[in-house]
């Protein structure tokens, strides 16, 4: 499977990456090389093999529903690039 320029720009949009022209050109070659290598997984017939998403058999880990200390409002804003009162300030949404 190969990725062309149009697909690459679509994926960059999905990933919210505004790539520069030189990055697009470099990435197209590199991603195709990597995809050619990883596509090897399709050589195996694994129709009957269950997937592994997690290496341990840990299921349904619940925490007790008990209140405990959490971050203060000031701590939550400590690293904010821009703050307006108790809000993170960002530019307007713009067109979709």
């Amino acid at each position, binding site marked *: *499977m190969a*990725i062309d320029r149009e*697909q*690459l720009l679509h*994926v*960059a949009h*999905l*990933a*919210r*990456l*505004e*790539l*520069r022209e030189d*990055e697009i050109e470099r*990435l197209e070659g*590199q*991603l195709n*090389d*990597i*995809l050619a*290598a*990883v*596509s*090897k*997984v*399709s050589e*195996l017939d*694994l129709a009957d*093999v*269950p*997937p*592994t*998403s*997690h*290496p*341990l058999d*840990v299921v349904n*880990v619940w*925490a007790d529903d008990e209140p405990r200390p959490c*971050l203060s409002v000031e*701590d*939550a804003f*400590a*690293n*904010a*690039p*821009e703050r307006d009162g108790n809000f*993170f300030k*960002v*530019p*307007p*949404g*713009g*067109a979709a």
Partner: protein
Amino acid sequence: MIDTLRLTAEEAKRLLEAREISGAELFAAYRAAIDDRDAELHCYLHVCDDPGGEGIPIALKDVIGTKGIPTTAGSKILEHYVPVYDSTVVERLKAHGLRILGKTNMDEFAMGSSTENSGFGPTRNPWDPERVPGGSSGGSTAAVAAGLAPWALGSDTGGSIKQPAALCGVVGLRPTYGTVSRYGIVAFASSLDQIGPIAKTVRDCALLYRIVAGRDPCDSTTVELPQPIELPEAEDLRGLRIGVPKELNETEGIEPGVTERVNAALGLAQELGAEVGECSLPRSVDFGLPCYYLIAPSEASSNLARYDGVRYGFRAKGDGDIRSLYARTRDEGFGDEPKRRIMLGTYALSAGYYEAFYGQAQKVRTLIKQEHDALFERFDLLASPTSPTVAFRLGERTQNPLAMYLSDVLTIPSNMAGLPGLSIPCGLSEGLPVGLQLIGPQFSENALFRAGHALEQALGFDFVPERLR
């Protein structure tokens, strides 16, 4: 005079307890070593002042969140980020009196095998500054090798503790998945990421692992250890069955000097009483790397979605709406490797490709786990080189991502299966350290420490880089 190049954490602990040295003297000795040698090596991104106390100092990979101390994960996108809480591992270290010496350099977001992908410049190998220390925990392994820390914590997703430990001639443990909390750690690929110890000796590794391991209510993937961790004492390997998977030992690209040192170590294991037998992992090695480079980037693309310039971290300047802010912040903030992996992962998870890539890779992962499980019915541990090569030159693999990815071809398969692995130095090739990788079943850390310690004693490897002796 404290010789930080030779001092082990265990010996430091003894000297402190006997009051032969003070905590302040010990911390100052490491700070002096850092002042002396780190301008050349660049192991540290941030160095801390002595917080006081009598505990042993420790270096932390900069992926580990530290309250009030900058934590960048080697990325410009987190350049000025200062966590407001400690990760669980740091809480545990502090509860044992350990003192943070500083935060160590790493490949950006732990993506890399040479520490050259750091947003803040590469670390150099203490054995030869023209060469890389490996990665992504290269700052931690180089700091321990160069006497700039008695021990350190790193993180390992595809080999990021084991491989740089091998290239720097130190001991590194990638623990069983789920035994060390990731709460407060910058996430890369969550079904693979593990925190683990890096030290000069196997016993130091065991001591540090004992401090950090165990269930954490803040990380629901963690479990309690089935047995307490024991400090290894035995100097023989009687009764131990070591399997040597031929694919892990004969894969194309393993340097002859590496094979020679590993075979010599296996011969020594036999002399110490171990049974050593050949075995096979027919698909785990061939398919491990492709499987990893689908699963890890997919998880990374999701984990790195949080860096958007809104709540913390870097924000791009300029006008535009919020969508443009996200996209420019991420383009300017991330380096090349995270971008490659975000793109690859987003593609592999996107509609129409999910089953063929991510879904198929998860099934390959099952095969890899089954192949390893089958071998552990006949063997207690498996052995191979940790890295196919000794430390390579800076710049040698930076232009070719696939060549860099191959650095981890021998560490990835067992990582996919959630298995613990220990790398110990087993000699030199071309004057550079060679690592022996020992792999065990889940929760077999005690067996790994026992075997590693006995071999370490028999090998008598001098962990001080020749040029610093």
